[in-house]
């Protein structure tokens, strides 16, 4: 796990901190026009409190960007089958990217805890975007790949002692 955010020492210039921050920003290189083009491929979804956007072990083919409200990320606890909250995600967070990429069932349930809004990019919309605006898809894929690479590096680091 990365705790650098808790210990962001004012004068410390550790490379890792900057690298991690950068890696986690999605679609940062998009210009304003591109953003509007990109969002035109998405679908605005409205969620009520307790409504699930994606469900653990069920298929999902979309990436979601939270635009307002907040969601809990739930996974079944190791002991009981009950779903346990592992994270809270808010405005600006992105979820669903794993099953979007690999087509496997969701690794967690994401449930709205307040009335919320999210932008959904379906796999089909992504395909359409790939054909119509290939550079947008390129940026998106590159960012997702960067995220995975970042996570993998961190895992490697955790294995190194």
């Amino acid at each position, binding site marked *: 796990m990365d705790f650098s955010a808790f210990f962001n020492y004012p004068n410390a210039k550790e490379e890792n901190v900057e690298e991690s921050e950068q890696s986690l920003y999605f679609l940062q290189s998009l210009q304003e026009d591109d953003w509007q083009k990109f969002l035109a491929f998405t679908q605005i979804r409205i969620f009520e409190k307790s409504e699930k956007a994606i469900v653990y072990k069920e298929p999902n083919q979309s990436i979601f960007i939270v*635009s307002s409200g907040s969601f809990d990320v739930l996974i079944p606890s190791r002991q009981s089958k009950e779903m346990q909250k*592992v994270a809270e995600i808010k405005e600006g967070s992105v979820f669903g990217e794993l099953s979007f990429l690999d087509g496997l069932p969701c690794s967690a349930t994401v449930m709205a805890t307040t009335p919320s809004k999210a932008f959904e990019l*379906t796999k089909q919309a992504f395909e359409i975007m790939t054909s119509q605006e290939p550079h947008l898809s390129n940026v998106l894929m590159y960012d997702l790949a960067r995220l995975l690479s970042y996570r993998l590096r961190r895992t490697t680091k955790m294995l190194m002692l």
Partner: protein
Amino acid sequence: MSLAKKFPNYMQVKKVIPDWVWHFSRVISFLCVVAICYFLYEKPKIGLFLFWGVFIPALPLMFFIAPGVWRNICPMASVNQLSRELKINKGIAAGKRFKEYSYVIAITLIYLIIPARKYLFSYNATSLLLLIIFMMLLAFIGGLFFKGKSGWCASMCPLLPFQQIYGQTPFINVRNYHCRPCVGCVENCYDFNPNISYLAMLYGSDKYSAGYRKFFVSSLPGLIIAFFTVPNPPLISIMSMYTAALSIIAISIAVYFILTTFVKIADTNIAILYGAISINLFYFFILPLLDAQYSAVFGINIPDFVYHIVYITIFSLSVVWLVRTYRKEQAFLGAVSEEKSLRIKSMAPVHEFEKKHMSNPVVTILPSNRRLVVNPGESLLEIMEAEKLPVQSGCRVGMCGADPVTILEGYENLDPPSEEEKATLLRLGVSERSRMACCARVKGPVTVSLQPELSHKVRVAQAEGAQFNFNNLVIIGNGVAGMTAAYHVNTIHPNCKITIIGRESHHYYNRMAIARLLESHSHISDISLLPKNWAIAPYAECWLNTIAMKIDREKKSVEIGIHEYVSYDKLIIATGSSSYIPPIENKNLKGCFKLREADDVIQIRKYIQEHDCHRVVISGGGLLGLEPAYEFSQYERFSVSIVERGPHLLMRQLDTRAAKYLHSYLEGLGIHIIVNAEVKKVIGKKRVVKVQVTDANQQNEKILNCDLLLICAGIKPNIQIAKECGLAVNRGVIVDSHMRTEDPDIYAIGDVAEVNGKIEGLWVSSMQQAKVASQHILGKETAYANVVPMTILKIAGIDVISMGVIEPRTDQDSVIIIENEREKTYRKLVISNNKIIGAILVGTKLYADDVHAAIENEIDVSAMMALLRSGDWKILTIKGMPKLSGS
């Protein structure tokens, strides 16, 4: 940042106490140590009492409630930071080894000092004095050489492990006053972020570092119990004391590891529990001892209830602490994973977009209760397809009956239904609040259920009591033409016996949707078009998997393949058409398929699975070929190639320029397109592995790897049975405008019928022909007028619509083309004698319905030419067309 609120680091904690107070307290605390040292030297009893009876018992409570206070005033810290303040420290960054083992040094010191109290430090003032001086010296040296607090306070100090355990969730957060500025000297610094430091250590990637801490906390209750329960030497020997103490500590550690192994809660939670137990044990044992000591020193007996109150307070605090610490850990874990998630740095563009679309209608779709903000004018079908909701589609003009939905709320917020759609809803027998999703364009908020709702109204035959000269209708073919005819006849003449002979083994289904059967969940029942309350059941028999062999016009009977005869008063031939298979060498090899019927798709699907197919070649770039090509391209495992004979795709529907947009869109989806070429030969031993493609001049050839070849080259009407019984045929069965063949009792409709010299071959025209034929059979003189064919390509992401005549037929015909290469839109009108006779729309569906209506109604456009040429086709809408487009 939310982290700052939840887990403020010391720089984010508000400064409440001014620095001079800390300066002052620091001096006082240092003087206290000097005083204790003085007493230890001069008056050992008082010194020992002050140190062990006042100072030490107060420390854990201070760590527990406000550890920051101690961190700021600790005399060892003052000594440690002295060299920094005098600017004489060397500021060496601690090495890796030192960082790793400093905690081990700290707990070793604890294990050396605490048991030694029992026979030395608690009684011998000189040794205690030396110990204090030694510790102060170590703290000073650490500060002299190492950077920040890394030489003592944040590394080796034996008080630090206690602070980290008891003080991991301070009741009062106190701002660190020493580290100005913070130099980031240690990882996961306790001074920097006391709430997180210990957790970060336990959850940290360094398993050893976490292990040392878990080891210490697991031993702590044992250490406390041992300290207070094992008799002091000389009551027992020092050796026995150590043995007994170690045994108790070992049990404590063992219990911890047993608990972490067998109790299914996180080991960090057990660590917290051990922390709470430790502080309770400490005060449980020490309070009675203090009672005795204080009584002895001050000569007054403090009543028991005071100690009880003190103990209960500590116990209650520890329960609160336990809960707070547990919750904090959960929040910490949440925050850690939150930090991991992918984020958008600036949401401004997202919010801007959202603001622009705020007033758009919201569509709620049941049963999933999905709420979507949609663009006004979108049809429910388009919305649901984009969301991959389980909805069927067919003709997309409200006639085939594939997509009925129920509008639970906001019916008035949809474009009103057309006459055709109303007829379809009536035919399907669905309730009044139903709509065909493809036609229901959204104007305002709507709640829609995917579940069709059946009407409770009993269908009443429209011509009850009327006399008909026939009671026995036979229909060959259970496709759209045959089934529509059966419906119409039954509606007017419910007592007529209707026999439908279906060659395929499935009930009436949506042929336009067969490519869907390739999808993972699809089943033939998903594309069934039989209305749920198929009311004609008692009088209509549908024979499936039955081939009509011969028509005996004299005996008025049809021989079917199992040597039975079905007699008729009236016969409708609706045998449809089959795939046209061009001459391809070796086309009978396994892996070559046509794609026309549900069974074809079922076979294809089976073959794909059995032979793990990846490379699909589709021969034919017409409508028939493109839709399966698109369907396959949606799955990453398939690579798809289309081989088209003509110079571009959709030769019948598009011109070269329009096809260019479609071509590049499909290529963008990853579909490989070869034009001016055809599949000549299939290569392979047992099954297809390659195909040979040659160009139009037969000069160049190319070999494509191929696991599956789909031949979608066109259709040919099934006229055999009509031809054999002597009916006049051309390409199709020749019929008059009532769809009647030269035999007055035999009609032909659908793909097999040639009317006015044309075979329409479209779903919508088949329905129209079925209606005309059945009305004529029932005695009504209606004539079939060729419909203006409107073709909508069912490929998501690009609108391709073609209608009527797409190229000028004479020099007098004119053409209007509005093209925007940047937006990839192309609109074309073909105008003849001041009437629009055909159109192509690519990349836009704006005005599609208006243009179609203008063609059908033969609107005179002579006065609007300027506007049409400018690209502003709104005029067609304003002209009062029956249907409005989703503009």
